[in-house]
């Protein structure tokens, strides 16, 4: 039986300072649609359905919120996806912006 010897290299203790994924730190944004007097309600509903794939009922709920409250938060997303949605909405000439969620 070979003699027991102490290991020459003692493993170091590793301390993980944080185990959360990188995504949890990535900033998120609210995609907001703002009211204007020129876009038809039926048009705004159509655009929401087209871009977000929403059913009519949900699209109309957000459209009414834009109409009555002046704005509606449509989605909360990471930067890249929020940029995509803003670009799509503005492509239809809706007034859309992305605002930092925190």
């Amino acid at each position, binding site marked *: 039986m070979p003699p027991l010897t102490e290991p020459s290299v003692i493993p170091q203790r590793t301390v993980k300072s944080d185990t959360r994924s990188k995504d949890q730190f990535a900033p998120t944004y609210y995609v907001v649609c703002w009211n*204007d*007097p*020129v*876009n*038809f309600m*039926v*048009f705004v509903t*159509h655009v929401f359905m*087209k871009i977000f794939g929403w059913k009519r009922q949900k699209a109309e709920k957000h459209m009414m919120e834009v109409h009555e409250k002046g704005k509606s938060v449509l989605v909360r997303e990471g*930067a890249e996806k929020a*940029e995509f949605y*803003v*670009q799509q909405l*503005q*492509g*239809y*000439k809706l007034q859309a*912006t*992305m*605002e*930092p969620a925190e």
Partner: protein
Amino acid sequence: MKLVKQTQRGFQYELNREDVESLRFLVKQFPITAFAPARVSKTDAGSKAVEREKLINESLQAHREELKRKARGLVLRERFKTSEGKQFYRISLRARETMLQILNDIRVESWRILGEPEDPESAVFRVAGEKFRYYHFMRLAGYFEYHFLNLEEERR
């Protein structure tokens, strides 16, 4: 203008002669203004936001150029078929989205030229001369938008 046929691939509308000429004239006007950069955020003013706004506006400008390239093709004379004295216009689902974007660009930009009135319809009482054509464009674009969309909705 009325919807006469709807399939999974697209729509067919019946238009009168005046509608045909108005739609062709209007779409050929696109774009009625030069591209103007849009605000992308009301609260974020950081350097990343500035860069983001620049990139989104570049993308919007390229998209508008693409719409411009497609506009005339959407209203070529041969797209309007005449049968038994009636005129028909066939448009695919995708092309209809392009058409709606073009029409709404004309509508919104006309409204801006008119000074962004709170009540767009009332603008008629305040505009004169050269600007009156934009009031006409805004209303005409709205007329076609409404019919391209609403007639489809009524059938659901």
